């Protein structure tokens, strides 16, 4: 039995409990608002996992962007639509859905874990994109990520611009109330 350092073990256990507990909450609770709050719990757990694995910057972003923005957006829409009272606890209307879902998902998850395990969890060569420089801890992490984003991943970073552009156009277009009629058209 390998003895792992207690802090890391404790962090992992807490992280796992938060993550899976939150996820199960999303799965099980009746009220959509509660589901959103469970999601936050799960996301905090993931952020903890990031922290434990030298991804300080991402842990912060996870909390700011996900918990702070995305889940708030979810809550906003739930409130807006006024569906917080509704739940879907009754019997599953699609026959066999739950069983087949459990079977399919079980096979996929166990299969993937088996496949990863068969490769001894990792098979790549270390430090390809940082040219042999190991991961830096603390604020060095931010520098490294910033460096990578503006060099190796420059085009990807630019492409996110297009992505956000679409999100803007799409959201505006979808949320607009009624379309104007032909008469308003100008040349």
């Amino acid at each position: 039995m390998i003895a792992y350092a207690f802090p890391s073990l404790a962090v992992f256990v807490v992280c796992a409990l938060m993550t899976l507990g939150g996820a199960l909450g999303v799965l099980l609770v009746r009220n959509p608002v509660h589901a959103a709050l469970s999601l936050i719990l799960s996301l905090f757990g993931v952020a903890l996992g990031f922290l434990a694995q030298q991804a300080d910057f991402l842990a912060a972003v996870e909390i700011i962007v996900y918990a702070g923005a995305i889940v708030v957006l979810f809550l906003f829409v739930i409130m807006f639509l006024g569906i917080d009272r509704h739940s879907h606890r009754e019997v599953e209307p699609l026959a066999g859905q739950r069983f087949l879902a459990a079977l399919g998902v079980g096979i996929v998850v166990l299969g993937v874990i088996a496949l990863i395990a068969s490769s001894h969890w990792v098979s790549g060569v270390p430090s390809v994109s940082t040219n042999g420089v190991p991961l830096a801890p603390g604020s060095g992490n931010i520098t490294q990520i910033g460096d990578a984003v503006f060099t190796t991943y420059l085009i990807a970073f630019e492409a996110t611009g297009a992505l956000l552009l679409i999100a803007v156009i799409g959201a505006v277009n979808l949320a607009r109330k009624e379309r104007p009629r032909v008469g308003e058209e100008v040349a």
Partner: protein
Amino acid sequence: MTLHVPAINYLALLPFLLVTAAALKLLMLTALMRRRIATSLATWTAVVAGLAVLGTTLVQWYELDRYGSSVTAAGAIVYDPFGVLMTAGIAVSLILAVLNGHDWQRREGIVGAEYQMLVLLAAGGAILMAQANDLIIVFLGLEILSIALYCLIAFNRRRQASAESAMKYFLLGGFAAAIFIYGVALTYGATGTTNLTNIAYFLGSNHLLHPGLLLAGGGLMLVAFVFKVEAAPFHFWAPDVYEGEPTPLSGAHASIVWAGAFAALVRIMVVALGSQQSTWRPLFFGLIVASIATGALLTIQQSNAKRLLAYASVTQSGFVLLGIWAGTASGVAATTFYVVTYGPVVLATFAIVGLVSGPGDSDHALTRYQGLSRRNPWLAASLAVLLLSQLGVPFTTGFDAKFGVLAATLDAGNVWGAVVAMMGAAVAAFAYLRWTTTLYADVDETLAPLVVPWATRVVVGFGVLTTVVVGVDPGLITSISSHATLLFQ
């Protein structure tokens, strides 16, 4: 510390920049002008952008011919004839899709430039996928393409069907994207990189004793692409979405989305994971058989034109996968030929489908086509040609494309795949022929001829001419696509 910004070949990136810039220009105009901008202005902006992309690809082609292929922007973008040809195909599809949308907007009384903006950006995403040399870029291109499509499908909010199909496509698309990026993560773990060149290099210089992780990654990534190209059993969204979305968009699925998804699939499977060919070939075989059988069987009982075409494209995508199965130079060339020539045909078909359905865009029953030859003989003849092309009748591009992939797959030893494909084509032929005979069926009362707007005329004319001219003499496109080899093949 200093930042070493990588060298960027802007000519290679120009197609993506052009379409994004055109979309931005339209956004600016919309924001700055007090009243809604005219549809024709938006259409022309998009068409000019498409033509500019076509011009750019021409320059790129000659430059590549002289100096050879390369990677740029720190190896994230690949600049090779395959990507350029796919980009050209996307540009053509973009122009045709925009023209389709123009007439659709007129019919439905929709003003504004949102449709054009979103189609431009969707084409941008597809172009990015075709040129991507990094799994992250592929993912971003895929998402740009998908998110633009989600918005476009939900565009016509007066129609309940449109909302339903948007919801379905969005949920399943998001689901598929999550599976894809999980596959990317596993591949990253297996090879230590997301760059396709580096993956190929890593797998070429190391023999993986335990390839489980890599295979899991590859298998999950595959799912997203076969979802996008409607291969069975990941095709279920296709008929519902085709039926519900605005008709000009249905054409875009089998042209713009196909070009992007198949290009990325070819790059990932043939370039990055070429060494695992013996593993993924059986998977492809299963997908091919399932797609061709499901698509062919389901087309024969469809009475809705758009659903029928959706199932038909399930079969067609099975055929394209035959070319990738081969994984050889001729297989890739055949895939390219198939995808590039199928776009104009399917867009022209949907142009006619939209026109026949008329305002409201909701009644697509095949019975509406009865006696079309009496009302609009030219239109009926064009539709007949387009359908026969999809069926794969000689002297059309459909035949040459099918012939190409079958020859490639047979050369690579896939006899059974070819047999299944031919049987599937024979079954599916029934549906196409039934539709064609409907066009020429006698009707008691003859309705007034449909008025064919100019943009639809252009699209249909282009589609028919392409399929017939290239079909009779496929030499040019065949030679181009066989020159459009991959950089790292």
